[in-house]
């Protein structure tokens, strides 16, 4: 009995194609008597869709219009053009008694600002890191639940869950609202704990971190997003006695995305991000600091060649908790260096640059960067690497620190979406 209930539930939930209720029968549209003169995809470049789908579309040309088939193609287009809405229109053709089929795609802007999240990364110094996010999209709202266990991003390894609610259209699609709740448990590398013993002015480790953040974003035009919000972080500190400290901050951000494709096939992609967090007594924060981070990425591609330049700079004024401090030497910055060798408890200044060249999936890169504290000399470090980076997100890299001794390569492997 229990098995049959389970089977029924599975059938209900995962049956890929159930009974078609009221599906359009062939031959019910009077325009099906007319041959298709042309099939057009408007509002988006043909290069955005797969070759088989493009071929399917073109197969309609010369044949009599078939609404059912056209509906199927529209459905496939919606599947491939994730950040577009697709509608179909049939128009009179230029030739008598012929029709044109137009699939009109309209970009839903907000998706270009979604941050890519690492799924699984193996780093030979840090071990495995991973995250799994399940998002449920319902019209303009997104509800997401994620599980995280990562040592790649910050000085700490943190594991826990995150919840997100996002409304991408508050009256207009130029106004968006977002709520986040993250809850993590931390563990710190021995090198970090050791370094902290000799730096009393740097805040200590904590065993749990919770963040409740909200933000309101405006998209004055399609490439630009401006955000402002709040972030209420609570840290559970175990030593010398258990207590909670807070980092309650106001946040602001600017994101710019611009893509161009020239007639000669030259593809340019430019991204710019600026983020500001300022924790203040006004919000009853225990920590008082201002953290600014700016990053820019530029890629230039033609056919199988891609050149990329990446830049990042950051500054912290005041006393910020460990999760805010800058570090270099992970799977995406200063590859080849171990972040616990570079700065085990992070620093308050950051400058970083990277150049890469790709031919097909083969990749060569050069990273350079430094982290330091105000009033201290900065030591610039370099690294070189080779790797494989496929379009679908898989990457494998071997990176070497540029120095005269102890040149130990670091191996990285994983998926990023």
């Amino acid at each position: 009995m229990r098995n049959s209930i389970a089977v029924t539930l599975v059938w209900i939930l995962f049956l890929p194609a159930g009974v078609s209720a009221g599906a359009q029968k062939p031959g019910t549209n009077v325009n099906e008597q007319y041959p298709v003169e042309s099939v057009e995809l408007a509002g988006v470049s043909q290069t955005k869709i797969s070759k088989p789908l493009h071929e399917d579309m073109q197969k309609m040309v010369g044949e009599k219009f078939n609404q059912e088939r056209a509906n199927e193609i529209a459905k496939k287009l919606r599947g491939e053009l994730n950040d577009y809405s697709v509608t179909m229109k049939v128009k009179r053709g230029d030739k008598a008694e012929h029709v044109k089929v137009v699939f009109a795609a309209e970009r839903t802007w907000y998706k270009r600002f979604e941050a890519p999240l690492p799924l699984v990364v193996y780093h030979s110094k840090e071990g495995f890191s991973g995250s799994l996010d399940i998002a449920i999209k319902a019209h303009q709202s997104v509800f997401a639940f994620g599980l995280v266990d990562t040592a790649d991003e910050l000085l700490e390894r943190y594991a826990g869950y995150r919840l997100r609610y996002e409304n991408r259209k508050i009256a207009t699609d130029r106004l968006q609202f977002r709520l986040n709740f993250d809850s993590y448990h931390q563990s710190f590398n021995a090198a970090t704990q050791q370094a902290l013993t000799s730096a009393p002015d740097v805040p200590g480790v904590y065993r749990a971190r919770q963040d409740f953040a909200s933000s309101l974003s405006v998209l004055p035009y399609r490439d630009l997003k401006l955000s402002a919000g709040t972030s209420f972080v609570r840290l559970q500190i175990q030593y010398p006695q258990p207590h909670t400290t807070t980092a309650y901050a106001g946040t602001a951000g600017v994101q710019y995305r611009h893509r161009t494709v020239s007639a000669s096939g030259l593809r340019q992609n430019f991204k710019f991000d600026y983020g500001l967090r300022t924790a203040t007594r006004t919000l009853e924060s225990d920590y008082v600091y201002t953290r600014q981070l700016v990053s820019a990425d530029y890629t230039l591609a033609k056919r199988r060649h891609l050149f990329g330049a990446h830049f990042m700079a950051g500054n912290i004024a005041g006393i910020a908790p460990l999760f805010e401090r800058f570090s270099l030497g992970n799977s995406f910055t200063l590859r080849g260096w171990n972040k616990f060798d570079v700065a085990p408890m992070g620093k308050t200044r950051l400058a970083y640059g990277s150049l890469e060249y790709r031919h097909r999936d083969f990749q060569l890169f050069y990273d350079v960067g430094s982290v330091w504290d105000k009033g201290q000399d900065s030591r610039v470090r370099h690294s070189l690497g080779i790797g494989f980076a496929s379009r679908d997100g898989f990457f494998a890299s071997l990176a070497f620190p540029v120095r005269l001794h102890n040149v130990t390569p670091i191996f990285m492997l994983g998926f990023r979406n």
Partner: protein
Amino acid sequence: MTSNQKILMMIGFAAYACAQLQAQPNPLTVMRQGNHLLITAPQLHFLDGKPLEQLHNGASVTYIFSLTLEPGGASAFHLQRRFIVSYDLWEERFSIIQAEPAGRTASHLAAAAAESWCLENMQIPLPALKPDNRFVVRLQCTIEDAEQNEIGAGLTLAGLIDVLSRKKREELPRWEAASGTLRLSDVKGKEETGDSGQETVEKPHPRRY
């Protein structure tokens, strides 16, 4: 009561009267032809608005008609028909297929003729009525929800979540017409006008497309 209050009250009454008028169904005329009652509703225009826009974009739209006969408030007779309407982009004429029960088709129809054709196929058999009973004929029309069908076609977890969490969809258009209270003996026979216009109504099949 001050003059301002009187004016406000009059505006309120006027607004209420307008709203009531707006909510009134279109008038529906009933005629007798042979063993059937025929209905007409010249003021009922369902080839209009968004569905018409869809038709002009080359898509077909399924209309669902529901006709009820209400003696003494309780529904005694119910008839439902589905008509698939499409718009010939070259001839600029409407074409209709009766989908439920399947069979009759019509083509080369202007908008008014297409609307009339649908109503002509909503006939009430006389045996459904008792000669002395009073009755009201009520007609409702809506369109088939294509979006709903798409969800039904792929009954998946994502689809269910979408259905359960989606924002209230734009309401489907709905049209209504109703007759006054009638008795069979009051219903007049249909006058033969002989006016078939330019439209040609094809008797059951063959379909030409």
